[in-house]
């Protein structure tokens, strides 16, 4: 993994500090060209990995990368799945079964498997594999060496103690996509001990790590202790706490923590991108 990874929240109006900023960003990045232009600014500054949620629009970015192979030599995408609000809104409206039906590949419910759902409902690993394949379709021909499970799913499985599913995700991503599994979480200490007990060595964990302890469940000092043990490959995200932590302080803190392998950040303007990369690199 590279030291600095470029994130996608700013492109899709995900802003944990302000709904208003979120709307401004949605307007700014309405066109795919604007996203591509911004990715290219980060690329020119030496950041060759884009970590993104599996929104429908990412398919267009992948298409662009496939169409310009000479420009994107060595460029990597780390997909993060699923885009949870899509499912959550569907569950509120259609119920759990209805939502699954809406997003499962269509052929399962037609001729191939009569009573497909009843059959599938007993094979949870298989159901997850089908959902992973559906989300991975758009990335064909693009280098995706790490595939992430979004925090809402990681933490849901963690809380429900459905540990086997975490192991199944890890195993399937390796087998089918020759990729490493990554886990995004808001509960790093708990996840770290669970993955260790599952026998998963040096798992990739992406978590909020910042000076103010924002979204660091269990507290900052426990995080620092677990990270220092170096049992995981750690990616720090939300280093600015979603925007309320002073940028210089945030960067000084994150650079002082030993055991962090990579730092994920996103920004919309060329100035912010270049300045942050420069500060992180010093």
């Amino acid at each position, binding site marked *: 993994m590279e030291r600095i990874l470029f994130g996608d929240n700013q492109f*899709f109006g995900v802003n944990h500090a302000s709904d208003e900023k979120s709307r401004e960003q949605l307007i700014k990045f309405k066109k795919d060209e604007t996203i591509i232009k911004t990715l290219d600014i980060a690329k020119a500054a030496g950041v060759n990995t884009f970590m993104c949620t599996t929104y429908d629009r990412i398919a267009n970015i992948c298409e662009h990368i496939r169409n310009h192979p000479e420009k994107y030599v060595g460029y990597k995408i780390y997909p993060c799945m699923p885009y949870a609000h899509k499912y959550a809104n569907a569950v509120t409206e259609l119920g759990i079964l209805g939502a699954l039906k809406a997003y499962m590949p269509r052929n399962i419910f037609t001729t191939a498997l009569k009573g497909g759902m009843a059959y599938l409902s007993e094979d*949870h690993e298989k159901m997850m594999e089908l959902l992973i394949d559906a989300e991975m379709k758009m990335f064909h021909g693009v280098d995706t060496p790490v595939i992430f499970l979004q925090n809402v799913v990681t933490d849901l499985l963690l809380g429900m103690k459905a540990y086997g599913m975490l192991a199944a995700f890890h195993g399937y991503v390796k087998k089918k996509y020759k990729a490493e599994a990554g886990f995004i979480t808001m509960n790093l200490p708990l996840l770290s001990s669970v993955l260790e007990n599952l026998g998963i060595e040096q798992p990739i964990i992406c978590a909020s790590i910042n000076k103010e302890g924002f979204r660091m469940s*269990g507290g900052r000092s426990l995080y620092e202790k677990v990270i220092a043990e170096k049992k995981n490959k750690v990616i720090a995200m939300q280093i600015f706490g979603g925007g309320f932590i002073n940028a210089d302080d945030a960067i000084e803190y994150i650079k002082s923590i030993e055991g962090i392998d990579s730092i994920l950040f996103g920004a919309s303007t060329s100035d912010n991108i270049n300045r942050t990369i420069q500060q992180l690199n010093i």
Partner: protein
Amino acid sequence: MEHKIRLGLIGLGKMGISHLAIAGGNENIEVVGVCDTSKLVAGFIEKQTPFKVYDDFRLMVKESKPDAVIVSVPTKYHSEIIEELLDSHIHVFSEKPLTLDAAISQRLAEKAELLGLVNQVGYHNHFIGTFEEMCRLIDKKVMGDLYHFTAEAYGPVVTKEKDSTWRSKPEEGGGCLYDYASHVIDLVNYALGEIKQVSGIQLKKIYSKDVEDAVYGTLHLNSGLSGILSVNWSDEAYRKMSTKITVQGKNGKLIVDATELKLYLNGAVKGETYERGWNTVSIGMLQDQVDFYLRGEEYTAQLDYFVDCIKKKKTGEHNRFRDAAKTDHAIEMIRKSK
């Protein structure tokens, strides 16, 4: 080791599953049983998790002997289940709204209080730092005498004409009024005062056939203050539910959502750090961190509060049945006035 609260869950829809995961991540809780009639969900819990699954809540209560139960079944089943749980001397956390009949909600509140049982409803906005600060600012009259408010929520739940579930049936507690709007109405009751009367109500169908997708109207409070309610769950311009309260007073204006608090003051107020003009505070500066996070600190915080009340044998001050009964009453007024 300290005694853990023995918790049961009835209903494993979106909220039930979320509660289960949060309870599973809580060191003060032992989940002793979960109950759902859906084979799909029950099958998953049975095979993939260590929790004991039932398809009959009475059997679950009898066998697993919970101290407390979370009820997150469709609203029309709430009253019957909650009544039986209270009769069995079990503390109850219910999803919102409490019931479809304000008189029944009030009776359940009285019963729970008489029996000394902790009773709480899942209006989670009370546990969001920005809304908590909003309540403090209103109580301290920082914006001066209030003359108007706007209470809004928008989101993309129903954005196409589709198959029906219980959420598309008004008699089962479906529709935007019982869902999105109940949160906003509850926030008004909690932060600004009890709703006495409603007027100019419009319940609009947009994509749904049998239920409203939007609720608009005027709310009149006991205090004499009035304001606008505007809620729409068919608004695709929003990525997820967004709730916003704007309060206007003679000394300023307050705009609050789950991410940010913005306060304009005509003049500074003694004892407050807010300055004249615009002040903005991000949720990161107002929210206490939790021990296990899923979807938002407030979901964990409300369950922590429930468990804390049980442990300390206190009735609690947030989201009691009696508060939720007031919200059910306002919902009833809105439904009847159309």
